[in-house]
């Protein structure tokens, strides 16, 4: 860690980890309700549990991105942050808004509209938080060195804020409502978030593998070129059955098929860069999380996305457990693992320790990744059976749910393992080894030639 203001990232990482544990906890609770439907049915209905599970995922992902930005920006721009006070105030506003929203949900106070359930006042708060954040990082970027990593990261973060504005537009017409809703949901996770992912992975490759910036930048341009080429019109794969014109079935099928390309490129990128560098960086755990991120994102977002993205396939699979399988592995691979990779890299430096308990972090990696894969397969099999019984043979929804219950038990079991792995990860970050900081182990040894 070279710049004092990078320390502000620590606050964001603590907040993100707190919400991460809450997200997984509520996920386990929701999985329990699936198999034991009367669990907390009076006190905490399933829709509320699910809402907290998904909302906290999104908020902690964003909080992690913000932390990652505050951490890497001073190093990239070679200047201190514009204002650490503003960054701290912004964090507490964001954390309070998230907390108030969750407490509100517990009392069933929300606006509906999946993922955008936050009450109006909270939505306004989110916009204010975003403006504070963008002002701070943009001012920092303007006064410092300009790099491709920073440019693309800022492009992505501005995109996040701009597309969130569609949350304020909610037409009465349900088809239009859904159309604009996807401007946020799709253009975030399959658009601008991918820019954030690519630029943060690029930063990690520069730092962890000492790869020349010129090489990384070329990869970055190709990856974001592919992401935007495929991802923007890929929105069409959500327009098949919402009342939009039929040609969206062709546009959506075509461009969302191509959405596999940027994820494939990111996987090749991290593996190729690491193979070239020969894993010389002492923080093996961070490198493992970084590569794992691109690999699991390729399978979760790329392969599992393609499984049901063609309109002729989606006609049968829409809204079944196939979707749930894809959603879980895609979010885990792309955005959960990205944040965990950044934290695994940054936290030892922020806390001035040698790269902490790597054994525990690496064990957590394998446990969490395996459990998420088991969960994904369980839900995929559940989805295939569901499609056949419900959509092909025409059995009733709840009759089918009863028959696929064994898969839900497997999902619950793997969810519990994910929770254990998450606790191991947090422990590995917060309760580090006793070694003193040595220059060779700070993570700053393999600086690339600029």
């Amino acid at each position, binding site marked *: 860690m070279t710049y004092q203001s990078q320390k502000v990232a620590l606050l964001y990482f603590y907040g993100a980890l707190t919400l991460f544990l809450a997200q997984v906890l509520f996920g386990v609770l929701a999985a329990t309700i699936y198999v034991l439907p009367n669990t907390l049915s009076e006190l905490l209905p399933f829709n509320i549990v699910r809402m907290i599970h998904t909302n906290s995922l999104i908020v902690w992902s964003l909080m992690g991105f913000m932390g990652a930005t505050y951490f890497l920006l001073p190093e990239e721009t070679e200047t201190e942050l514009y204002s650490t006070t503003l960054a701290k105030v912004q964090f507490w506003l964001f954390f309070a808004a998230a907390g108030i929203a969750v407490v509100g949900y517990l009392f069933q106070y929300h606006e509906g509209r999946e993922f955008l359930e936050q009450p109006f006042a909270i939505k306004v708060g989110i916009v204010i938080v975003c403006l504070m954040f963008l002002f701070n990082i943009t001012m920092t970027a303007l006064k410092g060195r300009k790099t491709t990593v920073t440019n693309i990261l800022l492009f992505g973060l501005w995109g996040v804020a701009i597309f969130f504005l569609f949350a304020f537009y909610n037409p009465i017409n349900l088809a239009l409502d859904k159309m604009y809703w996807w401007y946020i949901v799709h253009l975030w996770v399959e658009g601008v978030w991918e820019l954030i992912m690519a630029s943060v992975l690029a930063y990690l490759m520069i730092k962890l*593998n*000492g*790869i*020349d910036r*010129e*090489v990384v930048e*070329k990869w970055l*341009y*190709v990856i974001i*070129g*592919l992401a935007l*080429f*495929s991802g923007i019109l890929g929105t069409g794969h959500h327009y098949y059955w919402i009342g939009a*014109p*039929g*040609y969206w079935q*062709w*546009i959506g*099928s*075509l*461009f969302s*098929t*191509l959405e596999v*390309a940027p994820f494939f490129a990111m996987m090749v990128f991290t593996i190729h*860069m690491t193979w*070239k*560098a*020969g894993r*010389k960086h002492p923080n093996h755990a961070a490198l493992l999380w970084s590569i794992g991120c691109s690999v699991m994102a390729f399978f979760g977002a790329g392969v599992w996305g393609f499984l049901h993205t063609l309109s002729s396939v989606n006609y049968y699979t829409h809204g079944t457990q196939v979707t749930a399988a894809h959603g879980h592995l895609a979010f885990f691979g792309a955005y959960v693992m990205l944040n965990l990779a950044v934290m695994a890299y940054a936290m030892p430096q922020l806390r001035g320790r040698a790269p902490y308990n790597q054994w525990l972090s690496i064990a957590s990696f394998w446990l969490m990744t395996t459990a998420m894969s088991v969960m994904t397969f369980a839900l995929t099999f559940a989805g295939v059976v569901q499609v056949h019984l419900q959509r092909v043979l025409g059995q009733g929804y709840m009759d089918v749910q009863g028959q696929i219950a064994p898969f839900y038990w497997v999902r619950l079991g793997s969810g519990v393992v994910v929770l254990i792995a998450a606790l191991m990860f947090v422990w590995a970050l917060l309760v580090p080894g006793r070694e003193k900081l040595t220059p060779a182990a700070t993570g700053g040894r*393999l*600086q*690339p*030639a600029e």
Partner: protein
Amino acid sequence: MTVSSDATHDTSGWGVLDDLPGHPMMWVLIFSELTAFGLLLGAFAVARAVDPAGFAADQTRLDVGLAGLNTLVLIASGWLAARAAIAARSGRRAAVRGLTAGAIALGALFIGIKLVEYGHEIAGGADPETSTFFTLYFLLTGFHLLHVGLGMVILAVVGWRAAADDVETGAAFWHMVDLVWLVMMPSLYLIR
């Protein structure tokens, strides 16, 4: 200190794209475009195999004469763009500007003729929702038309500056637009 010095100290580090004329990122775009148009034409071929009679009936409602004329217009425009790239390499700025202006003008003519043709078809009761044939026809030609428009903007930018590398980059995109039309035109209009 760097681990990957071998990759950065040779020509420009884009691998196989280094040997192609123009900017390597343009070739990433061109390959993406060819993939997208190729998949859509593949989808057209599959849909046609499923419903040969319906496709044959709808095909007769297209204006082959105007499409043939447009093919000549676009090829002529591509030739002018190629001449502009050659002129740019020898530093003849005025010639570059004249030739790209000609290429752009023929691009505009292509768009005009295509819109007249659309007018005839829409007047004849065809729209993107009429049938699978017309959905794919309007998508394929519509996407292509948007690329003609984008190509004209690109040519205008690179033609004005007239730097050899830029003009080659623009001409490469313009030839992609040519090439896609040359595959698309017989697939949609001629193959029975």
